[in-house]
């Protein structure tokens, strides 16, 4: 089960710059560490994080193994119109999670 935490304002004034924060539960295994049996634990990371506002991509970030476990990202966006903000994480081993929040823009 994947757990996602998103912190975004529920309402915003038109044109306001709002902060969006997203956190996802993920081990971000680097592929450089040996396990208890001495063998390298295979890499398992999230490679890409994207955010779209009503279907238009507004932010994209490519992760490397140097991103800490349970990746947290904070960025800003202009509240242009009300609707849905969708966050999407994709990565190794077919990892794909999507989460949306609604926002009212007056």
């Amino acid at each position: 089960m994947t757990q996602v935490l998103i912190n975004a304002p529920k309402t915003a004034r038109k044109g306001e710059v709002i902060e969006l924060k997203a956190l996802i539960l993920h081990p971000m295994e680097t592929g450089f560490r040996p396990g208890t049996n001495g063998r390298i634990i295979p890499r398992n990371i999230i490679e890409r994080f994207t955010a779209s506002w009503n279907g238009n991509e507004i932010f994209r970030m490519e992760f490397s193994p140097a991103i800490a476990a349970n990746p947290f990202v904070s960025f800003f966006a202009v509240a242009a119109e009300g609707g849905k903000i969708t966050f999407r994480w994709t990565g190794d081993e077919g990892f794909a999670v999507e989460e949306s929040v609604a926002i009212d823009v007056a």
Partner: protein
Amino acid sequence: MKRTGVIPRPKAEGPLRLQERSLPSTALRAGATLGMTARLDRRAFLAGTALVSVFPFAPGRATPEAMAAAIKEVVGDNAIREGRVTLDLPPLIENGNTVPITVSVESPMNEADHIKAIHVFNEKNPQPHVFDARLSPRNGKAVIATRIKLGDSQKIVAIAETSKGEFFSASADVIVTLAACLEDLT
């Protein structure tokens, strides 16, 4: 700070305990095979630590040269200027597994002039890349915060690419006391 009031520890024990704590499990195992458990043999112990210092990131390690190459890949032949970028991360890091980092770039963020991308590099993790972020005028502010892993005390470089094709950079030196990737997994 002066440590005048500290009671001196027995010499053989103090530094060893410190070492053990900062070594990965493989080190202890390597040490054990060399007869460390039977008797504290200084040579065996040193051989063990030497092994560890050679192999912690055996699959390859980023170096300042690798970082320069990775930066070159992004920037090409364009000049990189200092300024406009603020790289905010703690100068002294107790735990390299999660290090908060904030990159902010001064920019009007309008159609004509905005930050297109922010790249962050390091010089001593296994790979020189940390993250690449793509921005647009829809972001309003070129500020990104996240948490990263650091394998050693090193220099972190952030590079911002503007819509006009200019590159600005900032760097920060950090000291890491407990490195990422070296924790005991048992």
